[in-house]
């Protein structure tokens, strides 16, 4: 299997990372060498194996559905790169 430039560009779109042409080529090379190494898993037959999703064998805990924090609006907005009163500001999304 080989990951081509087109696939790398598609993945970078999905990952929302813009990529220069030159860097995309290097990334394709790197990904190919990493996947070559990952392909080793195909040696194993795993049809009858249950996937391990969590190592902590606990069922998720429930809590009462009530608000436990104070008004932390300011704290939440504190680190935002751009804000306007009580809102996060982003580039215009509606034409």
């Amino acid at each position, binding site marked *: 299997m080989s*990951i081509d430039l087109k*696939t*790398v560009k598609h*993945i*970078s779109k*999905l*990952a*929302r*990372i*813009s*990529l220069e042409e030159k860097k995309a080529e290097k*990334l394709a090379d*790197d*990904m190919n*060498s*990493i*996947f070559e*190494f*990952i*392909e*080793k*898993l*195909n*040696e*194993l037959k*795993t049809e009858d*194996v*249950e*996937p*391990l*999703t*969590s*190592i*902590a064998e*606990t069922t*998720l*805990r429930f*809590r009462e559905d009530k608000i436990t924090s104070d008004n*932390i609006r300011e*704290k*939440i907005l*504190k*680190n*935002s*790169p*751009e804000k306007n009163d009580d809102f*996060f500001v*982003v*580039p*215009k*999304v509606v034409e």
Partner: protein
Amino acid sequence: MTEITSLSLFELIKNIKGKKISSNEIAKSFVDRSEKSKKLNTYVTENFENCLKLSKEFDNNPNFDLKLPGIPIAVKDLFCTNELRTTAGSNILNNFVPTYESTVTQNIWNEGGILLGKLNCDEFAMGSSNETSFFGNVQNPIAKDLVPGGSSGGSSSAVAANLTPVTIGTDTGGSIRQPASFTGTVGLKPTYGSCSRYGIVAFASSLDQAGPMSKDVKDSSILLEVISSFDKKDSTSIDFKRNNYSSELTRNIKGIKIGIPKEYRVDGMPDEIESLWKKGIEYAKDCGAEIIDISLPHTSYALPTYYIVAPAEASSNLARYDGVKYGLRSSGESLIDMYEKTRSEGFGEEVKRRIMIGTYVLSSGYYDAYYLKAQKVRQLIKQDFDQAYNKVDAILTPSTPSSAFKIGEKSNDPVSMYLNDIFTVPVNLAGLPGISIPAGTDKNNYPLGLQIIGKPFDEQTVLNIAYSMEEKINYKNNITDWWME
């Protein structure tokens, strides 16, 4: 008198409780030494002035019942600290100032610890040499231009160089144990679920664990006792009875069964690692342990499994860095353009590589072939350990397949960098506790570590074996302070 900064945590606590030394004297010593050690590049953010002030406050109103009374401690810059910049070694969090505190650091302050500063690490803890940090390489105090390991490289360097009495790191695939091994220090990764992940910048959530790093085993036991706690704020935190790790620490390990897994004898492993391991087996026997050969047949599949599971989880966790709620924002013509430019400028090469791998293995049509397959192999790896633990109490292996390497030596070859974690990754995949202790040196006099892996929640046995072997090994770092100004 021995310099304050070379004392162990245990000795510092004893001296402070005996009123032979004040918190402020201790803080001053570590701040002074840290100030003179800028060449190591261990700190990303210093908290020196505040630390000195808080130490005076402690001295004015001391509480000697605490477990870390007035002790200054620097922590890896992956732990959110309230009102103090937390970067995770990344440009994207360069200006991030948390408005809350991670549970493990809060546990430290609750027991009297005082924050000394935030320590350098690989970007988002992705790396084995600290070379992926946006804030630059960290020097290993053992020798110039040697990597300190990673991702907790600032932490390992700071402990080895006596810039902090102890520290905490995080370990997703070996990020505490490998840097400990590279710097002749002790590093413990607890059982998954022991230490809360709340407030730790997330990398791979099913693998991440915080743990202590120190000069000796006893100090790690003291710090583990403080940081390990059940926490409702972490949905995978486990409510089990935790030991008083330091007071229950014993060198009596007579009759303990230690397994030696034949699969860890990997191709191309240097002779010095092999002989270190053999010596370790002899030391364990001298301590009264019974040595048993075991098999962990899926060991060689651990690293490929890890390089699916960890990037997949990382790509999902790092989706939150979008330039909207916090962190860096680059300007873009549209919302999508802004996202793409922010993430391109904010993340470094290794982080982008892993996000790309993760996005790929989770993308439509590939999920079953990669992610599901990896989760199944992860099950097999865990079952290997379950079966081994029917016969033995713990497992002894080398910590790393080599000693520390030079800065730049492996940074262009991701796969050779990943191979560093070959002995540590299976432990994360199976969620087990593991410790690295210094056990000898290679031909260059660089430290080499041995790893002891335990049963789930059995940190005490891991610590006891390490404590017992440490006495027999009697390893001392030979550090010349070459970096001091």
